[in-house]
């Protein structure tokens, strides 16, 4: 871990002792696994100075189907002033997954969360306009889930010939 990175993790652990579940390093990236309910507090704490993680680089979801907490939300934060990257992960249950929305903190979270809702079905509480982004209205199902077959097509207009 880089020098600045250690200090950030230390401060996080001091401020939220019971919310941080695990801290690890994998292939040179720093990963922090947190509790689902404390996401908004931790993220607001990191955004302020001195840590200054001003940019949300990416927000995505992974489907570990078969495990108890099926969905894992992954957030990549970046600090321009100290040139540090941090990955925050949290687990959601498979039945009706939902989590706080980050649209009040960063503006690009709007479309990123719509993409996750479209592809995985995770609901974001507090999102102003949660609606499908890539797929069209009327599409049933969430394509990137592991139980959605790759080739299941739902045509919008009738096709001229059988495949």
């Amino acid at each position, binding site marked *: 871990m880089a020098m600045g990175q250690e200090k950030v993790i230390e401060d996080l652990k001091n401020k939220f002792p019971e919310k941080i579940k695990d801290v690890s390093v994998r292939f040179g990236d720093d990963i922090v696994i947190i509790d689902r309910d404390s996401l908004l507090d931790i993220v607001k704490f990191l955004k302020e100075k001195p840590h200054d993680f001003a940019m949300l680089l990416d927000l995505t979801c992974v489907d570990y189907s078969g495990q108890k907490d099926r969905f894992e939300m992954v957030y990549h934060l970046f600090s321009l002033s100290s040139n540090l990257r941090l990955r925050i992960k949290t687990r959601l249950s498979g039945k009706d997954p939902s989590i706080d929305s980050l649209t009040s903190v960063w503006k690009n979270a709007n479309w990123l969360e719509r993409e996750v809702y479209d592809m995985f079905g995770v609901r974001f509480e507090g999102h102003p306009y949660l609606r499908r982004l890539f*797929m*069209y209205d009327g599409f049933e199902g969430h*394509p990137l889930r592991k139980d*959605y*077959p*790759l*080739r*299941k*097509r*739902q*045509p*919008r*207009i009738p*096709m*001229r*010939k059988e*495949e």
Partner: protein
Amino acid sequence: MGKVNRQKKRAGPVRGGFITTRLNSMIGWGRKYSLFQYPFITACCGMEYMSVACAHYDLDRFGMGWTRFSPRQADMLLVVGTITQKEAPVLKTVYDQMTEPKWVVAFGACAVSGGIYDNYAVVQGIDNIIPVDVYIPGCPPRPETILDALIKLQQKVQKEGHEWRWGKKK
């Protein structure tokens, strides 16, 4: 009796008198050298289309220089790139809005058959939606392939029959 039968059995090029065949060729000649194209560009093949239309491999010398970005004014629909399920009604609407005579060219592997994308989101070939005249394979096709295909389309336009214009009305 036998003479009439033999005449009926002989199939061949467009039947008719000397004047109507000359008129057919003239209409075909006029149409093929002034095709107004509507490039329905979606994806990567658009880059190759752009370089065919520009100075290096000029499309204008074949009479297809004018891109008309309105279906009402175009007579050739050039479907360039992948067509997804979300885009399919749009393509059908644009095709329906074009007036006769119209020709469709499927440009690139994705438009011909879905290309490398065999999944939930991509239409496996635009001939599932609209009838196609010329298919251009390639991912993306080389400019020489595109020019060859457009010349073949021109030959097809030249050979079209116009008997319905001067045939006897029944």
